[in-house]
């Protein structure tokens, strides 16, 4: 790893002020489970690392209003242990998918949301868009884990967070702090599909940090997450789906369906939501929603299996919610 200067401020604003407004010069360190590996590979070569571990205000998972507040530095284990999160079934199911106690104890919720893509071209230094000599490597390369949606180019990687689809389906907001103050937005707006090599997969300024995630009350919602996994441990899912269904009588009045590992962003499927609205939540509506979710899929040369996996993930997530 390239050597760096280290600073561990004790407020979010001070941390933002310690960051450079220029991309790549400085890096935010939370639990380090992703960042340190990227630095060892020299994919990230910051000259200064700003650690968030001394900022007490970023910790904790607590009730807030009728909902939930998750501090950026709360770990996955903190989330699993928290009584305040007990009513958020789909979120806890997603968190349980991260099995290793070491990753649960070290990895933070904000770090999970902001972990960089697992795309092997990116991890080997070809950049987020995986370019070499002006040519995109993914379409004609090894792409079995890459995107099946939102992949018209130039980005083909998938967002690797399994907490993000659950949180977005629950209507989460995120607060970020910059050198001058804070702003809040829908969590979905934290993510973007980069359209050029100068953009990242998130909308944070280089000198902004996430401070907390807030989730409205889930009462009245049925929620579920289903992950399709190749291995049960030390790996990311192949596809995930999180659903949140508000019921009127025994009919779905408001459906939210968000898939993970299918697109460069957590993928909200309005097609699947339309297929569920007005229906009973059961196997046939779940299956219809699964098919609708992939109706516009454009698989690459090696990943058409993910289309089927996404269909199943949505169907089973509906079953888990129902």
């Amino acid at each position, binding site marked *: 790893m390239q050597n760096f200067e280290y600073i561990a401020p004790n407020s979010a604003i001070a941390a933002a002020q310690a960051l450079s407004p220029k991309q790549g010069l400085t890096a935010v360190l939370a639990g380090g489970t992703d960042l340190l590996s990227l630095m060892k590979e020299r994919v990230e070569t910051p000259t200064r690392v700003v650690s968030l*571990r001394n900022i007490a205000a970023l910790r904790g998972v607590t009730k807030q209003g009728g909902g939930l507040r998750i501090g950026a530095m709360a770990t996955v284990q903190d989330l699993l242990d928290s009584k305040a999160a007990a009513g958020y079934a789909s979120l806890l199911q997603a968190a349980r998918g991260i099995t*290793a106690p070491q990753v649960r104890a070290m990895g933070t919720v904000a770090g999970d949301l902001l972990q960089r893509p697992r795309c092997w071209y990116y991890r080997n230094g070809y950049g987020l868009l995986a370019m070499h000599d002006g040519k995109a490597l993914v379409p004609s390369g090894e792409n079995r884990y890459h995107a099946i949606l939102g992949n018209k180019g130039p980005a083909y990687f998938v967002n690797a967070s399994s907490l993000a689809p659950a949180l977005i389906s629950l209507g989460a907001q995120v607060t970020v702090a910059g050198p001058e103050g804070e702003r809040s937005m829908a969590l979905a707006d934290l993510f973007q599909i980069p359209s050029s090599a100068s953009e990242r997969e998130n909308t944070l300024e280089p000198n902004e940090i996430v401070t907390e995630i807030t989730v409205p009350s889930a009462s009245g919602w049925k929620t579920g997450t289903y992950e399709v996994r190749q291995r049960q441990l030390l790996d990311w899912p192949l596809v995930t789906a999180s659903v949140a269904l508000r019921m009127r009588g025994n009919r779905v009045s408001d459906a939210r369906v968000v898939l993970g590992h299918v697109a460069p962003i957590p993928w909200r499927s309005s097609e699947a939501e339309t297929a569920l609205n007005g229906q009973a939540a059961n196997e046939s509506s779940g299956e219809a929603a699964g098919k609708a979710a992939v109706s516009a899929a454009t698989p690459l040369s090696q990943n058409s299996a993910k289309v089927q996996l996404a269909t199943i993930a949505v169907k089973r997530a509906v079953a888990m919610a129902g």
Partner: protein
Amino acid sequence: MSSKNPTDGPVCGPDQEPRKGFSRRTFIEGVGIGAGAVGAIGAAEPARAQSSEPVGPDPVAITLNINGKSHELKVEPRVTLIDALRNRLDLTGAKKVCDRATCGACTVIVDGDPVYSCTMLAIEAQGRRIETIEGISTEDSMHPVQAQFVEHDAQQCGFCTPGLVMAGKAIVDGNSQPSMADVESGLSGNICRCGTYVGVRKAVYDAARA
């Protein structure tokens, strides 16, 4: 600037380049005598690393609490906990295998939680209670998890074993009656290429009840 003491150089595994002028061999020879000397230097300087002023990239004086003993050393901010343990403090029980948070061989316990020491900066481990495999037994008595590893013949080459024992210790420290499912999930951050899993699980399950 840092002094020319060889032990001030980067603490490195094969993937980190030693500072120019030191071969890996002289570097390793330097460590044995170095650690004590560095401790002395560290003690003479104020502990700066906890402050909210930037430190490094030159070596920084840090204090680590390991197995109930305080160790003072100087490390560059990039030095990971495993490199500090193995290369500077001669605590070579934890193994560096993947160096990427994906195998568990480097597992130590920090503030009661199992962590990957390859993926924690030494500077960030300050002020926390670090337990390593060296600290859990004495000359004449093994920790129950270790004793049950022997009982169940739970190792082959043994390279993953220190990490698995520490992951197992974290399980039994937190739960005296873990189910087999609890044991499996508690060990799910550690892999063994020799395939000793069945024996390891039984060992941890029995150690909790021992």
